[in-house]
């Protein structure tokens, strides 16, 4: 099959490369802002990961080793906060920032300055939240869920708690503004010919994620503002002793909190949906079904919040059990389409595809334990035990983290112009896979044996001790894997030992592979005609009917 020559971006568009401090501080370029988001999120990943290593070291043996309970409480609070809000959220927004305009053929985001504002607010939010460690009484210590009345001033008087609230308010505002920007960009800046049903799946997942953000983050912001008013101005929104309602906090928090899980996982779904067809050399199977499943997951995520509240006894367990289990259906549709895409494809297991395989198996385990927890009798038995911790980490570590590394392996060559080392990437993958399973799989058993989460000390029960030792060893494996990734990035990209990527190292399908690596300022000098969901493939293979994908 003959390939047609690709047009090159104009020279004047390539003239604005180079990174100086002033350029970073004043940039409105979505690509640089995306990279700033990714770098910041990775930094929070390292910080929050370090906190978890300290916790694992403490839990390796019964009794208190080198931490006291108060410090341990701060560590797990800021570990959860850092991972959920500032690593997971930052990565999702960062990937979306970098890739969305490229995927839809736009020169930038719809509101470039607003985009810059969101990053600086996000960074400030993270720094303020973590600055609690520098205060006299330490950081917030009531868990990343901030349950009232524990989070009220009478029980958590530390300044770090207020800083936690303010940090989340700042970053939450950034996230809301970012979602508005994403939706406006998708709705108004798509390349000609790119109808909604010719958008890449990743773009669809960004759209649905943005919708979830718009409907859920304002609720969190309102709840945080109420909590701050309680703590600093003497109100009693969440204080039952003064006529408030602690359950109201749980409703508000989980109305945000459960969609947040899908905010953190839908874009990874999109990443997987982009990588599988490229490494299977096939069009995506069931494009419309995948879009429908994405929308359905987003919709259902708003009707499941109180499955986190089964044991309160004041919610309709039947309603939330049914809606929670229903989410398995569209998720199953996604798995089916991914497997069908690979079926009889010319599979290549380069590093991005390996991470996708890891994602599929790890997220599947998290997905299977989800319906168990959606069953109230089982939830009553394992509520607040390590079983929940295991489930949560299989979903968000096995899902989001594996997809993030897949995305790095897939798109870093586009961002930097250099390939990562395949050998280091594959070693890192296996280390991460083994480390993750060693860390989180035994937690299921630990939970079934009754060990509660969020405790710094535990009785010297042989089975608990052995499992905790295994878990702690596994966490070292994860740390080594992340370290290896950093080495790979420095060696391949910073030291320029990686081979040059070229414009399209993987034979990609969507528009980001049409432009140079890295893309020039404002992305494109010209665009191919968009006639299907695979415009770059169509341009290179004009002999193939592009309409076949639409049908």
């Amino acid at each position: 099959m003959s390939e047609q020559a690709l047009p090159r971006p104009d020279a004047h568009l390539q003239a604005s490369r180079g990174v100086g401090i002033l350029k970073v501080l004043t940039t409105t370029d979505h690509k640089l802002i995306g990279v700033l988001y990714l770098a910041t999120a990775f930094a929070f990943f390292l910080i929050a990961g370090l906190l978890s290593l300290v916790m694992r070291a403490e839990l390796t043996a019964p009794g208190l080793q080198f931490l006291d309970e108060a410090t341990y409480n701060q560590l797990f609070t800021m570990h959860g906060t850092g991972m959920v809000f500032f690593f997971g959220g930052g990565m999702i927004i960062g990937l979306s920032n970098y890739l969305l305009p490229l995927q839809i053929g736009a020169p930038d985001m719809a509101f470039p300055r607003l985009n810059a504002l969101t990053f600086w607010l996000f960074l400030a939010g993270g720094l303020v939240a973590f600055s609690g460690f520098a205060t006299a009484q330490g950081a917030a210590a009531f868990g990343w869920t901030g349950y009232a009345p524990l989070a009220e001033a009478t029980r958590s008087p530390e300044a770090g708690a207020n800083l936690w609230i303010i940090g989340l308010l700042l970053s939450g505002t950034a996230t809301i503004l970012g979602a508005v920007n994403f939706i406006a960009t998708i709705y108004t800046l798509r390349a000609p010919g790119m109808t909604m049903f010719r958008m890449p799946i990743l773009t669809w997942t960004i759209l649905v994620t943005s919708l979830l953000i718009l409907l859920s983050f304002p609720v969190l912001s309102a709840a945080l503002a109420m909590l701050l008013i309680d703590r600093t101005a003497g109100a009693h929104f969440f204080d039952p002793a003064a006529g408030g309602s602690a359950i109201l906090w749980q409703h508000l928090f989980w109305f945000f909190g459960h969609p947040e899980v899908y905010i953190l996982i839908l874009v990874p779904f999109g990443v997987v949906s982009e990588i599988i067809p490229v490494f299977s050399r096939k069009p995506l199977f069931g494009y419309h079904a995948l879009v429908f499943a994405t929308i359905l997951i987003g919709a259902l995520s708003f009707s499941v919040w109180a499955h986190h509240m089964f044991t309160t006894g004041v919610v309709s367990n039947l309603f939330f059990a049914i809606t929670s289990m229903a989410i398995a259906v569209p998720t199953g549709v996604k798995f089916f389409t991914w497997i069908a895409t690979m079926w009889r494809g010319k599979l290549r297991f380069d590093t991005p595809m390996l991470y996708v395989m890891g994602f599929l198996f790890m997220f599947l385990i998290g997905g299977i334990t989800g319906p168990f927890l959606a069953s109230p009798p089982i939830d009553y038995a394992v509520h607040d035990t390590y079983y929940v911790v295991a489930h949560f980490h299989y979903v968000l570590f096995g899902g989001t983290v594996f997809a993030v590394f897949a995305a790095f392996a897939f798109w870093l060559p586009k961002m930097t112009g250099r390939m990562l080392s395949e050998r280091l990437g594959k070693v890192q993958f296996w280390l991460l896979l083994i480390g993750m399973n060693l860390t989180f799989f035994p937690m299921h058993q630990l939970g079934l044996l009754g060990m509660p989460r969020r405790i710094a000390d535990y009785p010297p029960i042989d089975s608990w001790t052995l499992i905790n030792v295994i878990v702690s060893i596994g966490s070292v494996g994860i740390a080594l894997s992340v370290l290896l990734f950093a080495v790979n990035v420095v060696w391949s990209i910073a030291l320029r030992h990686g081979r040059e990527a070229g414009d399209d190292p993987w034979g990609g399908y969507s528009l980001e592979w049409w432009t140079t690596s890295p893309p020039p300022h404002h992305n494109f000098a010209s665009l191919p005609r968009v006639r299907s969901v695979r415009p770059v493939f169509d341009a290179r293979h004009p002999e193939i009917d592009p309409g076949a994908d639409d049908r």
Partner: protein
Amino acid sequence: MTEEGRFFLRTGLYAAVIGVVYWFVSYEVAGSVLLAAAAFAGFVVVGVLVIGMPDGAGMPARPSGSPTRRALRLVNRLLGFRQLHGLEDEQPFSTGTLRLPGASSWPIVTAFGATLALTGIVYGPWLTIPGIVLVAVSVWGWVTS
């Protein structure tokens, strides 16, 4: 209605329906209000899109068939997943018609001001007041630049 509008219409309808079901199952106020707010938000966007971007594409010239078929077609147009129209023949805007703002220091100054203003709640008005001033100045500069 375009797919852009249908996306929010489905959202609003889903939240409305599930909100009604939830209310009668639980009689719980907080969740019902939140779902009603989500439905309202979805419908507001639909309204903006319909008013701002009127589009009759995909609508039949006159109704035909049985009432049931017409109703089903209407539901399909409003909530379905068929592409109603495309943009096949338009030229790419990257030919130079789109103007984008250049570098700007106002976003980082605004963020810095907002951070000062809010952290002043913890550390005192000596941070809040300059923070508010900084936000006001930067917003003014942003808007007028």
